[in-house]
Structures are given as C-alpha cells and as structure tokens.
C-alpha cells in the first residue's frame, strides 16, 4: 500500500497504527476465529488490513452481520465488529440466540465496537440477556479509514443527518476525537479556521478534550499540520447537489465509488474476443481505484472532457514504446525486456480506463443526463429559478428516481434567494409579520416561494405517495436560514464561464461552470491568509465563523520557506469534485500549500440525499 505514503502527513502511519490495534484485538483469542462485520464497515476495513493478513492470525472467514450463517460457521471464536448502533445489536442478539438454541458446539463470542462502546447498545444486550454470553466487549479505536496519501474518511454517512436533523451531537464528539488523534500523531495544529455551527462545536469539544487529557498524553513535538479548516457541510449544500464532472466524480455519480472500489458491468471491461471466451460469467467486476495506479492518479482529477484526449495520448505513447522493440542491439533488448512488465501493466490499466470512460460516455451522452445538467446549470446561473421548472415536473410525472428529483428541487431552493422577506424588511412591515415569515421559512426552509414549494410537494406526494412525507419534512428541516445565493454567486465568483475544461485555470472546472463554494472559501484562506475581505459574504452563510490560534509551545509554525500543510475537514461529507478542486489548488504554480483532506464520508448528491431520506 505504498500509495498512502508520500505526503508530509504520512497516512500510512495511521494505517499502521490501526492495523496493530486490530491485530492486537484479534490475536488475544487463541483458536480459529470468524469475524462478523457490520456490513457498513467491512469494505472500508479492507483499506486498513487485508483478509490475507488476518488469515495469518487464525481468522478463517469473514461474514456480514446481516447474513451470518452461524450454524455452519466452524470457528471457535466469533468476533463481531460493528458500529455502536442499536439496530445492529438486534442482529447480534438474534444470531447468538439461534446458536444457543441449536447448541451444537461451544463457541466464544466477542464484541468489538468501532470506534467506541455505547451505553445504549450494552444496555440493550443486557436487557436481552446476551451480555453474559459475550466473553469480551472491547473498542477498536479506528477513527479514519485511509483512502489515499491525502485523503482520510470516517465513513459515517449519518453525521449530517444526526446533527442538523436530529439535533444529536454524538458524531461531532467523534469528529473532535479524530482530530485529537491526528494531533497526537502529527503534532499540534497552529491555526484553525472554520465555518458553521458544527465546526464551532467540534472546535469547542476539541479544546475540552485537550484540557481533559492534558497530562496523560504528550503530543509529538514537531507540528506536521500547520493549519486546519473545519467546514460544516450545511455551509455549502450546493456543491454536494451539483453533478460532479471530473473523472472520479462521474465514476461515483454513475457507478458508485465506495471504499476505492467500483463495480462495473463486466461486459464493458472485456474486449470482443474475451466476451466470447468468458461468456459473461460474472455480471459485475470490482475494480480498485487508487493512486497506486499511476494512470488513474493522472486521470482522476481531470474534467471528463479532457479524459478522452489524455487516454488517446497515453495509448499512442504505450504503443510507441511497444513498437520500439525492433532493430535493437542485445543490450537494448535486455533493457526493453526488463521494462516489459510495467509496460504491460500500463497497457492493461489503459484498457481498463478506456472501457470505464466509454461506459461513462454512454451515460453522459444520454438526453436524460444532458437535460438534467442543463437545468442544474440554469439554476446555478440564476436563470428562471423561481418558477416551476418544466423539466422537474416531467421527471415527477415520469416517476424518475425520487433522489434525482429532490436533488434538483433542493438545488433550486438553495440557489434562489427569497425576495419576499427582503422586501418586507425594506418596506418596514410589522416586525411580527417578518419574523413569522422567517419562521415559516425555517419550517418550509427554502428560498422558494411557499406556493411553488407547496406545488412541488403536492405533486410529489400525488405521484410518489404519502410515504415520502417524512423525507420531505426532513429536507425542509435541514435547509435553515436564508441563503443569498445571488449575492454569493457574484461575490465569490461561484460561476465562471469560458474556463477551459482541458487546461483549467480555475476550480470551477470540476462542475464545468460552477466553483464549489466550500473550496472557494479554502482558496481564499490559503491565498490571503484570512477571511477578512469576505466578512460580508461569510455573514450570509449559516453558523458562526471560527478563527483561532491555539497556544502552542512550538514557534516554527509560520514557516514561509517550505510549503504549508493544511488539513481541510469536512463535517458531514465531501465530494470527489471538491477533493479534485483542492488538489488542483495545491498544484498551482503560486501555491505553497499541501492539503490533507479529512471527511466524515465521501458523498455525492444522491448518497447525501439518501442519508436524509426516511425509507
């Protein structure tokens, strides 16, 4: 896993620690072991340790918790590893109860919570009389899953929902702990910025944690991370809703990119000859995509319009290299042969990415994709955002997937500022009335005219049924506060025309015309060393602004010579397009910033909205 190294903040170090934690937890029990995973974390856990390594420690098999055939499991020790969620406890209780009923063989059960124990879960086990059957209950302090040399994710999809919808701060505590963990490894952080209520609360909790543990843990003396920027997802929902148009972003939008793995229909990956031979045995093929594949590392952050030409250039290069073998001396031939395996690997990867790019193009060429993109870009450019959009109406009528419909409506809500309330204030209408409307907006929570929103809602319920009412209510709750998109769009240059998609000069290339608001804020910070000039605009975004310089004994924080390391932490998730935009920023000539990106979950518009829906 060499691709994790290379950054100044060594992600492979985090992986090594988490590995050793896991091995320690497993090694303890002698005899054959089966690990039963909460299915939500089994895949990301693969980023920490491979199954082949676990085998060496007596693990005979891995199972998903929701489908665990305990009666045929031969292992002596059954180790459950799961998130502290009550629903999962039901599965564990059921599993153990069935096994006890059958009573075939003696087994030892162990439960490991990731990342920490929960009182409610343990209570539940106790009420069901299962706690006694569990020989050990432990914690696996794994805060992050390492995705790449500059990317860490907690892989908790509910963070935004929990905090902004359910008013439950549990996950923020976990975020604070994860930052504390990073600091204990990579030294104290010298400067902290943030925006949004969640950012502020995380910071307060972090300060508390540091105070609580002042003496038990000593931080590394050198600070590797110079600055940290905490971004509450609620500050910028637009960037999650806009369709990502980078290579990696589109892979995620179309096929779903989870834990660096994408499932592509197998027939797309095979050449015509192979198709005959293998006769389509498997329907989908899992591919691992990370920067250990150099070609993918080059491609991932590109706008998709630049991918085709890049691939054909690479193809020419490789075939030229392969052609080169004729008319050679023996010596030269020897060198050529040595290079051959790499060449063949490159060729294979090229074929793979060409196939993926072709399957993406199939989708992006469809009218459906293009129409939806057009509507989206109209919204982002503030063109007719306050009327019922015929395209959305058509989508509802044709009963397209609800997520897609909601994604566009949300985008329309956010990008549209509400002129009503502004007018009322300027006309000095009675305060009570204004307040009432603002409250109403907090309930309906959108910039859309109430009538239009009602129209949408009524239409949605008529078509999709009353079952969607909880989801609609959830969405209303999350979009609180007035957002002045029109003002922000101008002030922060959120839409940029005429930028080249192949040789971009601005981060807006990741959505073709729209620059992610979150990354604009980061860009401004790293270029100007503060948000002073943005005061007016920051005020329009929800939540407090954070600007802290924690006291540290370390003096060498502002080191202008070498590049600065900035940790950007997205509380509530971030998209691949945002990551690409950050990478783009640090690659600019005048930049001396290196970004490390941490997030609670890698998301796109669909997965984000799904986390807010009630099914």
């Amino acid at each position, binding site marked *: 896993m060499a691709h994790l190294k290379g950054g100044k903040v060594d992600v492979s170090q985090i992986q090594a620690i988490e590995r050793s934690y896991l091995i320690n937890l497993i090694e303890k029990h002698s005899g054959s072991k089966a690990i039963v995973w909460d299915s939500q974390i089994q895949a990301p856990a693969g980023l920490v340790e491979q199954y082949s390594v676990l085998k060496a420690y007596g693990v005979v098999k891995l199972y998903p918790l929701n489908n665990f055939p305990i009666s045929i499991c031969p292992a002596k020790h059954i180790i459950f590893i799961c998130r502290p969620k009550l629903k999962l406890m039901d599965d564990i209780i059921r599993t153990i109860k069935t096994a006890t009923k059958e009573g075939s063989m003696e087994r030892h059960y162990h439960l490991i919570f990731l990342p920490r124990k929960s*009182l409610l879960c343990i*209570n539940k086990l106790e009420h069901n009389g299962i706690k006694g059957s569990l020989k050990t209950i432990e914690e696996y302090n794994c805060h992050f899953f390492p995705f790449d040399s500059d990317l860490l994710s907690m892989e908790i999809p509910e963070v935004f929902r929990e905090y902004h919808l359910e008013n439950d701060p549990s996950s923020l*505590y976990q975020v604070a702990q994860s930052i504390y963990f990073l600091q204990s490894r990579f030294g104290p952080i010298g400067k902290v910025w943030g925006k949004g209520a969640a950012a502020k609360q995380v910071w307060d*909790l972090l300060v508390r944690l540091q105070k609580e543990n*002042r003496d038990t843990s000593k931080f590394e003396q050198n600070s590797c991370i110079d600055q940290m920027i905490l971004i509450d997802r609620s500050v910028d929902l637009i960037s999650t809703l806009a369709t990502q148009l980078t290579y990696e972003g589109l892979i995620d939008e179309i096929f779903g990119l989870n834990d660096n793995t994408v499932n592509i229909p197998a027939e797309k990956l095979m050449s015509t000859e192979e198709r005959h031979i293998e006769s389509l045995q498997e329907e989908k093929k899992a591919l691992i995509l990370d920067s250990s594949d150099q070609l993918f590392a080059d491609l991932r952050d590109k706008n998709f319009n630049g991918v085709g030409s890049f691939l054909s250039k690479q193809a020419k290069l490789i075939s030229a290299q392969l052609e080169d073998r004729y008319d050679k001396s023996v010596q030269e031939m020897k060198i050529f042969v040595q290079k051959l395996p790499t060449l063949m690997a490159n060729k294979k990867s090229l074929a793979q990415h060409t196939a993926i790019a072709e399957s993406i193009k199939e989708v992006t060429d469809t009218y459906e994709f293009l129409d939806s993109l057009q509507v989206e870009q109209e919204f982002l450019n503030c063109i007719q955002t306050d009327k019922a959009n015929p395209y959305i109406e058509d989508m509802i009528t044709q009963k397209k997937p609800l997520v897609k419909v909601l994604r566009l409506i949300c985008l329309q809500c956010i990008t549209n500022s509400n002129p009503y309330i502004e007018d009322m204030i300027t006309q000095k209408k009675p305060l009570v009335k204004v307040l009432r409307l603002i409250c109403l907006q907090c309930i309906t929570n959108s910039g859309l005219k109430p009538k239009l929103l*009602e129209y949408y809602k009524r239409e949605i319920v*008529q078509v999709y*049924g009353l*079952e969607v009412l909880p989801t609609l*209510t959830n969405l209303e709750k999350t979009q609180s506060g007035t957002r002045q998109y029109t003002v922000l769009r101008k002030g922060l240059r959120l839409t940029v025309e005429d930028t080249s998609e192949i040789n971009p000069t601005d981060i807006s290339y990741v959505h073709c015309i729209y620059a992610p608001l979150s990354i604009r804020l980061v860009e401004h910070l790293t270029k100007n060393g503060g948000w002073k000039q943005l005061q007016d605009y920051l005020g329009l975004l929800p939540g407090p602004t954070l600007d802290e310089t924690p006291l540290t004994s370390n003096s060498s924080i502002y080191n202008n010579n070498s590049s600065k390391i900035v940790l950007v932490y997205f509380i509530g998730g971030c998209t691949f397009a945002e990551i690409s935009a950050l990478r783009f920023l640090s690659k600019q000539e005048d930049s001396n910033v290196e970004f490390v990106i941490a997030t609670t979950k890698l998301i796109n518009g669909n997965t984000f909205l799904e986390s807010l829906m009630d099914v």
Partner: protein
Amino acid sequence: MRQCKLPKSPGYSTEQCWVVISRDRDMEFLVARGQELYRLSEDRQITLLEIDITHKYHFILGMAVSFNTKHIALLTDAGYLWMGSSDLTKKYCEVDTEVCSTLSQIVWCGNEAVVLFFGDKKMLLIVGKHGEMMSFTYDSLVHLVEEVDGVRVISSSQHELVQKVPEVVQKIFRINSTEPGSFLLEASKQFQKRSHRADEYISLVKDNLQVAVEQCIKAAGYEFDTDVQKMLIRAAQFGKCFVANIDADEYVQMCRELRVLNTVRDRKIGIPLTYTQLHCQGYKVLLDRLVASHHYYLAIEIAKYLKMSDKDGTSRILAHWAKYKVSKHGVNDEILSKQIAEKLGYAPSISFSDIANAAVSAGRKTLAIKLLEYESKASEQVQLLLQLEEYRQALIKALESGDTDQAYKVILKSRDKMSNIDFKGMLQEFPVALSLYIKFCREYNSVSLRDILKLPDDHNALGLLSVVESLDKERRLDQNALLWSAINSYKAARNDLCVSLCEDQLKLLAKQKSLEEKYSTPFIDLSVHNTCMKLLNLNHLKDAEKFRTEFKIPDRRYWWLRIQSMADNNSWEDLDQFSKSKKSPIGYAPFVDVCLQKLHISRDTDIIKRLIQSFLPKVSEEIKVKYYVKANCLEDAAKIAYEQRDIQSLLYVQSKCPAQSDLSEQINAYISQLGAKKGTPSSIPLFN
C-alpha cells in the same frame, strides 16, 4: 492479595508453629507439630519432612524464613538452633544457644544472620549463618521488626537497628584497610589538617581514584551519623577533583538523598529509614508515609527536591491534603472549595472527583458539588453527580462534554429515579437532551414517544408520527383514525399543506376501496398518480376522468398519463386520435418520446414510425432540432436548423453524423451560407 485453601494439617499435638515460604507464584507452608515437620503445598499435598537435627528434641519452638526465602532457621526445645536452606536439604550449622528459656521472637537479619529474643531473660541473641554468636541483654522487653537490610529492635524507650555492616563501609573503616576508599578518606582528613601527607595518600590510590570516590559516596549513604556522612562526602568531593571527566550524578544524587533521609530521620518526623530501605520502597512510599502523618508541606518540598513528576509527587500530595481538609469539618464549604481550587489550581492529573468523593464520605454534599466544578473529566463529574442524585447538574455536565453516552446515562437514570413531571420538565429545559431522548424512544419504538413529542408542542412531529403509523401495513385497521389524528396535529401546527395532504389521503383510501369493490382488483397502496394510471390502463376512461378532477391532477400530468397508458397498451390509433383531439398542453415532444420508447420493443413498428413522422413537425420550435436528432432524422434536423439560422444546432447535428459523410459536407455548406466561422465550441451539450 491471594487466597488459597490448604489441606488440613496432620497430627493432634497442640504445640506447633508455622511459616510461609512464597517463591514467585507458588506458596508452601511449613508446619511443625511436635517433632514432626510437614510441608503443605498449594496443590493440597502434605509431605512429612526429615530434618537432619543431630540433637534430640521434642518439639520445635520457632521457625523463621529469610528475606529472600532461601534460608530457614529452627529453634528446638533443646536449645539448638538449626540453620539451612529453606528446602531443608542443606544444613549450614546447628548451634547450641545455651538458653533454656521462652522464645519471644525469631527473625532473620537480612540473609546472613538470625536474631532471637528471649522474653524472660530479656536477652537478644544474634547467630550468624556459620554459627558465630553474640548476645545483648536489655532492660525491658523489646519487639523485633524484620527489615530488608536488618532488624529493628523497638523497646518502650528506644529504637535500634541491628544490621550487618555494609561491605563498602567495612572496606573503608576496617583497621589497616588498604581499599582505595580508605586511603582517600585519610588523604582528605590530612588535607583538612593542611598536612603534606594528603598528597602521599592520594598518590597511593592514584590509579583507583574513581573507585575510591564511589566507595566514599556509597559508604556515606549507609551512615546515620551526619558527621561521618559529611566526612565521607567531603572525601568524595576531594577525590573528585583529581579525576578528569568524572560523572557527578551519583555524587549529587547521594547528597540529595542523604538530605532527605536526614530530614525524615529527625525526631519530629520520626521515620528512621536506611538508604537501602528508601530504595526498596521507593520515593512514592516515603511520601505516602509522610502524607499519612500529615506532613504535607515537607512531602511536597521533598517531591520537588527529588524532582519527581507532578503525578507521583506534588499533585498526589495536594490531592491527599485536599481530602484530609475535606474530611475535617468546621470550614465553610464555599471558602474551603475555593481554598482547595486555589492550591491545586488546574494542576495536571489531579482528580477533583476523588476529593469530591472524600467530601461525600464525610457527608458534605454541597462541598462535593462545588469541588466537582473543577473536575476536568466529564465522565467523573457525571458519575458522582448521579450518585448524589443531582440529575440536573449531571445533565449539564454531560451535555457540555459532547459525549452523548454520558448524556444518555443521565437521561436513563433520571427517568427511572425522577418523577415523570420533573423528568419532562428537565428535558424541556435542555433541547439537546430532549432530542436525544426522542431519538432513543424512536429506536425502541417506545409508547412514550408520542407522550414526549407533546413536550415541545411539536405538532408537526406528532402529525408526522401519525402519518408514518398510518402507513404501517400492520395497522391498516387504524388507518383512518391515525390520519384523523395527523390532521388534528397538523391543524394545531397550522400546516395547511399537510392537512390537505392527509385529507387527500383519506379521500384516496375511500375512493380506492370503492374502486376495489367495483372492479375487484387491488388499488390499495397506490399513489394518486398510480391509481389514475391503473384506471387508464384498465381502460376505465370515465372513472379516470372523474378521479382526475376529484384529485385535481394537473392537466400536464394527466396528458402524460394518457399518452403513457396508450403507449403501454399499444393503442396507437387512439394515440393518433388523442393527439388530434385538442391542442396538447405539454406539446408534442412527449408523444415522440413514448413512441421512441416503444419503437424497438413493439411489434407495430411501422405504425409507430408513421406516428413519429406525424408528431415531429408539431414539436415546438426550440426543441425541434433535438427531437429530429433523437428520432435519428438527421437530414431533416439539419434542414430545420438551417431554416432557424441556428449555427449551434447545426454543429450539434453535425457532431451526430459520421465524419466525411455527405450530410456533414452539406452542413458545412449550410454553415458557410449562414456566414459563420467554423469550429466554435458549443457550450451545451457538454460531451461531444
């Protein structure tokens, strides 16, 4: 601490004595009964042991095991002392003590000698491992205390220490010693007398000066007399000057420790420790002993002087001090808590909850709560506050910490302990706690959820809860009642939209029921849209029309439904008729769309193709080109684009046709006719 059960000891004789021999993990007992000696081991075995005692005896008076458990000593009633290895296989000596008296105590002095005290003669006898003997007579009775490096002899007025003279001390002070340390000491003495002989002595040990210095330093540690200590330290210091690059740490450390030892040996403190004992027990134990006798100030000074960490030193002592203070009544709570906080500050590793706990045991609850304010660990605060039944305070602390596990702990505990009204009142005060509890109730599907949602008067949430319940298939019978309750809740929330949505749902249910009866096919669980669709698909056009007006389905959508259902039913003639019936409110693009959808799966390909051709010209102008392209009529599309004088569209059509085809050339011609520059990139569509 370990407990183990031993076998019952054999024999009936009452005269007996016993010792414990513990080696590492296992333990065994030696029990003497009369003449016999048994070994009782942990694995419940009893062995009769044979000892090689030459002189006849009736029973064993006393036994003692040495500090390192390797040696054992037995005294028989014949007055003989037998010494040997503790496994009794090796005999060191057997000496006649020549005392026929009651034995009070027998203990080992280090590992080299045994000390016996005979009560009625008040005689102390020291016997070496090799049989050498020494006796002392006392005025009063004494008690012997075994130490690691000797024996304390405590009488009513005196405290003595019997100890083998440490080797290094012997080396220096033995008469005619030729050890380097001895010479160095002499040299130092001469130097202080300002005598030239100092130089002679120094030159005698020139090569061994380092050893000499070390010996003097070490010897100083074993001395009790401060003058002798001084003399030796001075000698070490003197010798140090002659050695280049000598490491002074040992010297400095010894001076420090001697200072500490001398201080605690002072009468007022009364802890006569030897150097060895100090090191065996460690600094921490010394501090504990000082703290136990309330010498807090001295303990802190010593901790600082010995440069101990805060955790083992100052903080710990302060914590003890605070606990002592707390247990003593008389001082006002307010003042005392402030006093303690001031002294302890926010010193690291001080557990204020420990101190608070002490206050609780002293029955000072208010003081404890005040002290907890200073505790930095929320879990500790919460734990103790819960114990004190201060639920509100505990909840505040738990919420501040951000650790929701703590918050749940308080919430669940207080739910069980507080009255329902108080509990609800408390939750209402803390919105986060309330949300957490609501979430908990949701997870447990608890009946109290409805109850608790009433607290913040969250009628919207109550309404939603009813709606969700009404959708539960298992509660179908209550469906209407639940929807009514939802309507009432939404009315209270003035949520007109939701009221009407629920009313619609009621209406829909009723309608569906009647439709089911009428057509004996299931309609339940379909949305308004799908119900209408089903009616159309079943060709109940009149019902569909009625249904549509009843539920105010907009024209646009109804047309869509009609078109879609006709296409689904392959009723192409009807579709044609319908398109001509009146002007379509949704344009003719959807007509083309459904046809294209079915073109390749339907058998009526020809009819559909004909229909497409008839619909295409009716498509509105702005999307006409696109639809011609969609239907793959590229030539027409190009023509229309040309007529519309739209270069962008022309380029778009061109991108769809094969390169170097006739059409492509034709389009180029169109473009040049329209007088545009070639090759301007199109902004939308994006992917060409």
